[in-house]
């Protein structure tokens, strides 16, 4: 973090006095921090040890919610599996595609700005209902995708009706929106010093060697950051599963985000729902820690060179 101003003599006092005003600028954020972050954070931890229901009271029941989740609730086991699968299907594919296409576009081509813009468009819509509805229609049994399969003399697929395909079809919506990661990778690729490639050329390195030894290390911080953010987002997915399949068929798309919503806001089991939210949070913490742990092995920071 950067500081500014010289602190000598009378200037120091002036500086200190001036700095006190910082709390004033920070005040809205501080109020929000206490009221909208800390307080709900600890409340939800507390709720998760109670049987809090909107309709009834709130009694401390210790670890009961968690015990029920992990030993008795088959829905939860299913949701856990579905959420992990959703994350494993979407994040690696999305990032690989983003990187592959960014590499492909990272050359001297005319109209690169227009291309970048057009490829970004799907990312504009994020988890919007309108696009979820569009996906639902396109992948209907008699929708346009099946019509295309027929035209290609391929067997039709019950994308939403068959529990083997529903989750994967929902994943396709997420993967379609790889544009924002691609734009980030493209910016990172542009910043790789040209000399490094020239040096690799002199060493007689091939394309693959250059990718592994020059490109990947140089853009690894961005890959790392994107990986974490995308994983956090994937673990919380809700809209597409809710709007398109409503968790079905056979709960094959009943992701944790949906289970949390149903328990909390359809059945009003706030205590139980809170324990689900803490499982999601724990998963995020574990994944983030694992990624951070592993980062020393594969993430390369400029400063380390010196």
């Amino acid at each position, binding site marked *: 973090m950067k500081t*500014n101003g010289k602190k000598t003599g009378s200037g120091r006092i002036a500086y200190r006095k001036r700095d006190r005003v910082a*709390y004033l600028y920070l005040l809205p954020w501080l109020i929000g921090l206490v009221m909208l972050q800390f307080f709900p954070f600890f409340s939800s931890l507390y709720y998760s040890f109670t049987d809090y229901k909107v309709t009834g009271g709130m009694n401390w029941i210790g670890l009961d919610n968690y015990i029920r989740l992990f030993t008795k609730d088959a829905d939860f086991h299913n949701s856990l599996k579905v959420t992990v699968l959703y994350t494993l299907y979407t994040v690696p594919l999305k990032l690989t595609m983003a990187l592959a296409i960014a590499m492909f576009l990272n050359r001297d081509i005319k109209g690169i700005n227009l291309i970048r813009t*057009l490829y970004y468009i*799907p990312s504009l819509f994020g988890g919007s209902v309108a696009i979820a509805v569009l996906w639902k229609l396109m992948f209907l049994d008699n929708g346009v995708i099946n*019509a295309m399969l027929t035209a290609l003399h391929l067997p039709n697929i019950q994308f939403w009706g068959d529990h083997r395909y529903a989750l994967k079809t929902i994943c396709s919506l997420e993967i379609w929106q790889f*544009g924002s990661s691609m734009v980030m990778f493209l910016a990172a690729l542009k910043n790789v010093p040209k000399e490094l490639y020239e040096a690799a050329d002199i060493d007689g390195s091939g394309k693959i060697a250059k990718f592994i030894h020059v490109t990947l290390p140089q853009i690894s911080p961005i890959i790392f950051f994107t990986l974490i953010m995308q994983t956090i987002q994937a673990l919380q997915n809700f809209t597409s599963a809710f709007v398109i399949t409503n968790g079905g068929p056979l709960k094959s798309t009943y992701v944790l985000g949906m289970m949390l919503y149903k328990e909390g*806001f359809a059945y009003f089991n706030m205590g139980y729902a809170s324990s689900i939210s803490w499982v999601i949070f724990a998963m995020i913490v574990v994944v983030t820690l694992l990624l951070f742990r592993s980062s020393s092995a594969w993430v390369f920071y400029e400063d380390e060179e010196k």
Partner: protein
Amino acid sequence: MLAKRKNKTVNRVFTYLLIAVIGLALLYPIIWMFFASFKTNEEIYGSTRLLPAGFSFHNFVDGWKGNGVYTYARYFFNTFKLVIPVTLLTLVSSTLAAYAFERFRFRGKNILFAVMIALLMLPNSVLMIPRYSMYSGWGWINTYLPFYVPAALASNSFFIYMLVQFLHGIPGELDESACIDGCGSFRILVQILLPLMKPALFSAGLFQFMWTYNDYLNQLIFINSGEKYTVSLALRMSLDAEAIVNWGKVMAISFIAVLPLMILFFAAQKYFVEGIATSGLKG
């Protein structure tokens, strides 16, 4: 020599061809959606045809009427009434917080900064239930306050972080030279820094607009009466409203729903792309 040049041309043609094919595949759903707005269910079902039989705005007119009680004029009005203040409040509160973090030294700064960064990873799902209880206790359910107040209190660290990064790139000497003439820190912010921060503020504003506009879960939880419904909520309802969904109508409204984002994007694409490239963020 000639062969080599020819090879290069072939290569180039191939590159552009591939770019065009990928681009078309990516945008096809949106293009298809637009043309589906003019179709009947019979035209949509089991057909690979892209173009409709005729261009009648029937579906748009019918769809716009909504459920008979409220039209989409109402839902769009509500959406903007929610999204625009959220965007502006976020910009103001995040700027103040970023200014404090970047330009001042104060007790507890390092810890607070670390907390701010850690909050980037705190999922909304953990806070959702207690926030709901709190808001319902204060009578905020079915109002837009659950959206306005967090925005006014800079609850999304992402924007603070983004603006801190940007401020970091503006030399502190600028502020100091202004200060010699004896102007206060607030004047420095407003007169010196804000004009320089315009691109970053624009990017941040666009992203907050886009995310709030697309958000569904929070709107689903906090808003429950038809007169307050946003476009997202109304669209979801329209799927359940009729026994047989009139897809052309739903596509027409969906297309109108994504249109503001597309217009905004094309008008300000520079800020979008630069915003992502410089700050690094979720999709």
